[in-house]
C-alpha cells in the first residue's frame, strides 16, 4: 500500500521531544522554523491561497507528483525517514515510558554512549543523506556537490533548521567544537570495512552514490570536505557553542549538562529531526511545484 503524503503531513507532531529539541534551535536560527504541519495548512501557508477549490487542486497535483515514483520524492522521503530510524535503533518507546517515572539520570544509566567512531560515521552519513535527498527533491543530480553547495547557501525554514540540528545535535554536542575537523580526519582514515557495522550507513547505503562501499565512502568524504567550510562558517556566524546548546536542551532534559556523551546518544534515539523536517521540506517543494503546474 502506497504511503499517503497527505496523511504523513497531517500526522506530523506539534509537540514531543523532536519538536521541543528543534525549538531550542530558535536561538541559533531565530524565526526560521515554525513547525508547519497539516497538508492543507501547508498548502495555504506556502502559497498564500485560501480558496478551497485552489487548495484542493494544488493538493491533488502534489499527491499525483509524489505518487509518481520517477519523480524521486518517495525515495527522498524514504531517505529522510530511514536515516533517522537507522541511527537511533535503541528503544525510543522504552525511553518515553521511563521519562516522568523516575529521574532522567536513572534512565541514562541504562544507555551506552555511542563510540566516537560510530558518531562520526553517523554525522557523515546524515550529511550525505541531505545531499542526496535534497538533490532528488530539487532535481539536481545526486552527485552534483557544486549545485548542492550553491543551494545550501540559500537554505531557509525547515531545511536550515535541519542543518542547524545536524551541526548541533550530531556534531557539536557529541564531538565538541572542533567536530568538523575531527570528523573529517577520522573519515579520511577509514576504509570500507569501518562502515560495515554502522547501522546508519547500512540503512541508507543503497541510495548513496557509488558502485561499492569504497566509492560510497569516497563520496561521503568528498561531501563532508566540500561542506565543512559551510558548517564552520555556520557555527561561527551563529555563535553556536556546546554549552549554549546544552543549556537550552537542559530546559527539558533534566540532568543532561553533566552527561554530554549520554545526551548525544539520547538525542540520537529520541529526536527524529531528519524525518520531521525532511517531510516538511518535501511537502513544501511538492506544493511549490504543484501550484505552478496547475
Amino acid at each position: 500500500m502506497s504511503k499517503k503524503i497527505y496523511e504523513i503531513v497531517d500526522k506530523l507532531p506539534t509537540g514531543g521531544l523532536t519538536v521541543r529539541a528543534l525549538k531550542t534551535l530558535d536561538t541559533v536560527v531565530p524565526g526560521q522554523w515554525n513547525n508547519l504541519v497539516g497538508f492543507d495548512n501547508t498548502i495555504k501557508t506556502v502559497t498564500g491561497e485560501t480558496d478551497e477549490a485552489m487548495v484542493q487542486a494544488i493538493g491533488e497535483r502534489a499527491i499525483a507528483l509524489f505518487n509518481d515514483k520517477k519523480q524521486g520524492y518517495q525515495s527522498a522521503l524514504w531517505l529522510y525517514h530511514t536515516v533517522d530510524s537507522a541511527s537511533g535503533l535503541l528503544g525510543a518507546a522504552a525511553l518515553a515510558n521511563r521519562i516522568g517515572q523516575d529521574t532522567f539520570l536513572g534512565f541514562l544509566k541504562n544507555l551506552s554512549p555511542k563510540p566516537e567512531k560510530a558518531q562520526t560515521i553517523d554525522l557523515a552519513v546524515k550529511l550525505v543523506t541531505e545531499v542526496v535527498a535534497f538533490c532528488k527533491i530539487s532535481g539536481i543530480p545526486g552527485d552534483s556537490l557544486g549545485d548542492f553547495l550553491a543551494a545550501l547557501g540559500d537554505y531557509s525554514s525547515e531545511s536550515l533548521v535541519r542543518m542547524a540540528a545536524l551541526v548541533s545535535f550530531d556534531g557539536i554536542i557529541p564531538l565538541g567544537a572542533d567536530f568538523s575537523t575531527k570528523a573529517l580526519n577520522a573519515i579520511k582514515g577509514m576504509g570500507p570495512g569501518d562502515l560495515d557495522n554502522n547501522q546508519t550507513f547500512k540503512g541508507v547505503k543503497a541510495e548513496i552514490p557509488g558502485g561499492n562501499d569504497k566509492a560510497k565512502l569516497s563520496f561521503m568524504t568528498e561531501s563532508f570536505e566540500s561542506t565543512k567550510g559551510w558548517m564552520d562558517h555556520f557555527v561561527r556566524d551563529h555563535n553556536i557553542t556546546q554549552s549554549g546548546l546544552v543549556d537550552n536542551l537542559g530546559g527539558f532534559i533534566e540532568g543532561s549538562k553533566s552527561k554530554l556523551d549520554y545526551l548525544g546518544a539520547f538525542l540520537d534515539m529520541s529526536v527524529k529531526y531528519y524525518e520531521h523536517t525532511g517531510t516538511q521540506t518535501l511537502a513544501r517543494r511538492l506544493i511549490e511545484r504543484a501550484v505552478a503546474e496547475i
Partner: protein
Amino acid sequence: MTFTRWLRRLAPLMVCLVLLVTACSSAPSKYDQVQKDTTGFGSPAAVDKKAEKGGTFNAFFPGDQGGYKVIPYQEKKGFAEYKLEQDGKALAMLTISDTTSIPASAAKYSTATETVSGFPTVDQGTTATGVLVNDRYQVKVLSRDPSFTKADRVAWLQKFDLQGLAQLKGAINPVITPTVALPESPTTATPAAPARPKDGFKLPRVQLPRPSPSLQPAS
C-alpha cells in the same frame, strides 16, 4: 447460563476488537480519490514522457537585476522554478512548466481576455498570474509576499524571454484556440512544428546561454 457467562466474557473482547479496527482505519479524506487514481498498477505518470526537459527552460528566465536576485530552486522534467529575492526576502516564484502533462492547465487560457507580450494571460487564485506560450508552455509568477502585487507579477512575466520560449516545439495535442488577438505570436500551433516568429519566416532553433548557476535534471 453458561452461554450468558461466555457472552459476558466475550463482550469486552469484542468491544476492544471493534475499537482496534476503527482506530486502524483512517478517516476518509478529500484526497482519497486522487490517491486511488494515482497509485497501483496502470496508474498514469504525473509527468508525460514527451514533456520538455526542465533544463531547457533555464535559458528563458530573467537574470539578477537591480537589487533583485533570481535563484535556482527546482528543476524537474517539464518544470523549472526560480526564487525571486530582494534583500534576502522571497518576493515571488518564477516558473515555466510544460502543460503536456496537464492539458487542463493549458485549457484555462482559452477564455483569456488579456495578453502579456502578446500571449494569453490569466490570474489564478489570488497570488498567481500566468501566460501560455505556444499553447504549451505555462509561465507563471506567484507572489510570496503581500507587497508583490499583480502589477509586479505582470512586470516580471515580461522579463522572461517569452519569444525565445516560443521557438520551442508547440503543443503536442493542441487543446485550445486563443480567443484574443496575439500580435506577437502565432494564434495556433501545429503539432510538433516550431512556432513562427512574428515576421513570418522560419528561424533556426536558438541555443541561448544558460544562466549561472544552473541546475541539471536528475534523470
